[in-house]
C-alpha cells in the first residue's frame, strides 16, 4: 500500500511539472500586455516601460521561465503583477473559501444524491422514482449561472431569508452558493446511485439476504449499497474536480472570494504569476483527489489490493 502511494506521488511530480510548463507557455498565446493593462489608458510609454521592468516582463521569455521554475522548486510562485503581493499569499487567503464551498457542496451532493438514488432504486417505476429521476436530470442540466440568480431572486430578494451575495452572514452566506454548486453533482450522484443500486438489487446475494430474513434496511445498506459503492465513489471523486471548476462561476455570482474568482480576475488583468499559481494549485488538488479516490476503492472493496 505504502509503496503504491509513494509511486503515485512520484508519478505526480512530473505531471505537475508538465502542467506548470504548459501553463507558463500558454501565456504566449494569450493576447494582451499586462503592463499596458496595469498602466491604464492614459499612460505614457515611459510609465509602461517602467512597470514592465518592475514586473520582470522585460526579460526574455526563457529567462522568465527559468526563474519561474527556480522559484517553483523553492515553493516561491512569484509576485502578483496586479497587486504586488506574493502569489502564495494571494492564494492562501482565497483557497480556504473555495475549499469551504467545494467541501460543503460535495457533502450536500453526496448525502442528498445517495439518499435520493437509493430511494429511487427501491421505488423503481413509481411516481417517486419518476420525480427523483426528473429532479436529477433538472440538476444536471440547469446552467449554474441561471440557477444561482434564480435562487437569489427567490430566497434573497423575494423572501429575504438568505443573503444575496457576500460572506458577511456566516453560515447563511454559504447556503445559496453551496446549493447552486452542488445541484449538478447531486443530480449525477443520484443517477449513478440509482443505476448502481438497481444492478445490485437484482443480484442473487440480495435475494439470498432477503430470503434469510434480513431486515429491509440491512439488505439495502449492508448488502446492496456497499456493493454498489464502487461506481458511486468514482463519480464522487470526479465530481470534486467539477466542483472546483464550477466554483469559478458560482464564486462570481455570489461574490465569494475564492480561487475561482481570483483566477478570473487574474486572467482579466493578465496577471500571469497568479494564473500559473492557481492552475498549479487546482491540478495538485485534482491529482491528490484521484489518489485518494483510488485508496478509497481499496477500503470499499476488500478485493482490491494495491502493491
Amino acid at each position, binding site marked *: 500500500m505504502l509503496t503504491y502511494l509513494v509511486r503515485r506521488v512520484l508519478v505526480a511530480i512530473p505531471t505537475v511539472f508538465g502542467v506548470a510548463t504548459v501553463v507558463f507557455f500558454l501565456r504566449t498565446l494569450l*493576447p*494582451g*500586455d*499586462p503592463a*499596458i*493593462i*496595469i*498602466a*491604464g*489608458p*492614459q*499612460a*505614457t*510609454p*515611459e*510609465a509602461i516601460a*517602467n512597470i514592465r521592468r*518592475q514586473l520582470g516582463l522585460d526579460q526574455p521569455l526563457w529567462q522568465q521561465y527559468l526563474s519561474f521554475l527556480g522559484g517553483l522548486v523553492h515553493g516561491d510562485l512569484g509576485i502578483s503583477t496586479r*497587486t*504586488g*503581493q506574493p502569489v502564495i499569499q*494571494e492564494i492562501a*487567503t*482565497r483557497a480556504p473559501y473555495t475549499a469551504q464551498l467545494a467541501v460543503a457542496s460535495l457533502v*450536500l451532493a453526496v*448525502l*442528498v444524491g445517495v*439518499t435520493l438514488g437509493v430511494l429511487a432504486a427501491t421505488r423503481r417505476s413509481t411516481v417517486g422514482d419518476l420525480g427523483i429521476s426528473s429532479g436529477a436530470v433538472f440538476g444536471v442540466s440547469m446552467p449554474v449561472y441561471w440557477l444561482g*440568480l434564480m435562487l*437569489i*431572486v427567490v*430566497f*434573497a*430578494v423575494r423572501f*429575504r*431569508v*438568505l*443573503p*444575496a*451575495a*457576500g*460572506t*458577511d*452572514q*456566516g*453560515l*447563511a452566506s*454559504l*447556503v445559496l452558493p453551496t446549493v447552486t454548486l452542488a445541484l449538478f453533482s447531486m443530480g449525477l450522484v443520484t443517477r449513478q446511485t440509482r443505476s448502481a443500486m438497481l444492478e445490485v438489487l437484482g443480484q442473487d446475494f440480495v435475494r439470498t439476504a432477503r430470503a434469510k430474513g434480513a431486515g429491509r434496511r440491512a439488505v439495502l445498506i449492508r448488502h446492496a449499497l456497499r456493493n454498489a459503492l464502487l461506481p458511486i465513489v468514482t463519480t464522487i471523486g470526479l465530481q470534486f474536480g467539477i466542483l472546483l471548476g464550477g466554483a469559478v462561476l458560482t464564486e*462570481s*455570482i455570489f*461574490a465569494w*472570494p*475564492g480561487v475561482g*474568482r*481570483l483566477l*478570473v*480576475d487574474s486572467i*482579466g*488583468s493578465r496577471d500571469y504569476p497568479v494564473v500559473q499559481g492557481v492552475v498549479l494549485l487546482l491540478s495538485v488538488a485534482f491529482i491528490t483527489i484521484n489518489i485518494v479516490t483510488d485508496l478509497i476503492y481499496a477500503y470499499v472493496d476488500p478485493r482490491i489490493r494495491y502493491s
Partner: protein
Amino acid sequence: MRLRRRVVTLLMLAGLALAACGTGGGQQQTSSSGPKHGDTLRVAIGIDPDTLDPAAQTTTTAGQIVDMMAETLVTLDTKGALKPLLATSWTTGSDGLSWTFTLRQGVKFTDGTPMNAQAVKFSIDRLLDPNTFKAVPGVLGGKTGIDHVVAVDDTHVQFFLHTKFAPFAAAMTQTNAAIISPASVNAAPNTPAKIVQPVGTGPYKFQDRVAGDHITMAANKDYWGTKANYDTQTYKIVPEAASREALVKSGGADVIALPPANDIPSMQADSSLKVILGPSDRTIQIVINTQDATQPLLQKPEVRQALNYAIDKNAIIKNVMFGTAVPLSGPMSTSLFGYCPTGSYGYDPAKAKQMLQSAGAAGMSVKLAAPTGRYTQDIQVANAVAGYLRDAGLKVDGPATADWPTYLSTYANVPLAQSKIDLHLLGWAPAYLDAQQQFLQWYSTQMPPAGLETSYYKNPQLDSMIEQASSSTDPAQRSQIYCSAAKIVWNDAPWIFLYNQKYPYVTTSKVTNVPGLPNEKFVTTWASPA
C-alpha cells in the same frame, strides 16, 4: 406500513431542505429599519481594487475608495469645478513653470503626524520615483510634467514643471497626487515601494481588507472638515451586476455601483430605491481609421460625416442604453473645461446615403470591432451601429469582439501599419476635467504605441492649437482655442460621435447625500441616513 414509509421519506426530504436553508435564521440583516447614524454603510462595487496605493491608481472606483482616506491638494465639486482641499489657494508664476500651493494649517494625518509641505513633497516625489511599485504619474511625470518640488516652509510648497502646463491644478485633483503620511510608508505592511494601507488626512481611515471580499474604513473622529455620518463604511466586492442589484433590493447593501442596464427602468419604478444617473466625462465613439489603407474611402472627411448621419444615436440611447447616456453636442463631455457646443449630426439616413453616393462610397465594406464587458452595453451598441451602417448600404464585417486586454492589443492599441480594423468602439474618460485630456485623442504625437490616439488622425493645424492651449496661462484664451479646435474635429469627424455615457448607481431610499462627480466617482463619504 406503506404510509409510514412515505411519511419517513417526506420527513427526510423536508430535513434536507431545512439543512440547506435553516442556518440563516439568527444572523439575517434587518433590512426594514435601514441604516442609522453611527452604523455601517454597505456599498457594493464590481471591481476588486488592485491596490490602495494612491500613487498607483488608474481606476475611478478604486480611486474613490482611496479618496476617502487620502486627500489631494485640490478637488472637484459636483459640477466639476476646482475646489480647495488640502491647499487653500494656489498661484502660478509669471513664467508659467512654477506653481505655489498654500496648505491648510493644523491638519493631521490619521497616524497623528502633521500634514505639511514636507509631506506634500514626499508624496509627489514618491509618485515620480520609478521604484514606487506600479506608480502612474501620467501628465504629472515624464518629460513634460513636474521637474522638482520644493517645500518652501511648513505651509507653502512649490512645483517646478519642465514645460508650461495650464491645467496643472486640475491634474492635481487626480487620486495619484494624494498626500500621504511620510511615516506610514515604513509602518508594516506598507513599504516605501508599496502601500497596502494608505494613511492620509481623509474623513475615513483604513480598517481592514479581505482581498476579493471587502474593504472597511472607520470614520476619522479628528477629521479637519465636515465629519462623516457613518462610523464605518464597507465596500463589498460583487463582480456580477445582477448580484449587486439583488443585494440592494434585499437589504444586503445600501448603495451599489452599476446595476444591470436593462433593469434600470424597473428599478426606477421601485419606490424603495433611488436610481441616480451620475454624470460622467466618458464619451463613447466609433473610432474611424482616418489613414485607412484597406478602406481608403474612410480617409475622406465627407464619408466619415456621412457615417455620423447614418446612426440614430437617440434610438440607441433609448433602446440599447436604457436612457443612461446623452448624445454628444461636441467632441467631448460638457463637464470639461474648454467645452463648447459644436453642433449635432442628427439622424438623416437619406442624407447619409446621398453623401456616400457622391463620395463614391456607396456600398463600401468596413470591418467593425467592439470590446465585450468594458463599457455599458458595449457590444450591444456596436451591433446596433452595424445595423444602421448596413441600412445605409454599407457591407459591415463584424462587430468582432474580445475581452478588454485582448481587444486593446488586437484592435485598438496597435501602430497604424498593423491596424486591421476600419472602425472600432472605444470610450475615453479624461483623467481630469480639462479639454487638454480629451484632445489627446486627436493629438498626432499620441498615436499608438505612444498613446491611444487610435483614429490616427493627423492635422498639423490642430496639433499646434493643442500645444498652444496647453501652455497658455490665460483661461479665456485657452477656452477659445479649444472651442475652435473642437469645431475642426467635429467637422473632420475622425469618430462617429455617439454619446456621453452616464454612470448609474443605486441607493436605497433610506440613504441620502451620495452625489456623483463628473469623473464617474460617486461620493459615499458624507452619505447620511434619510
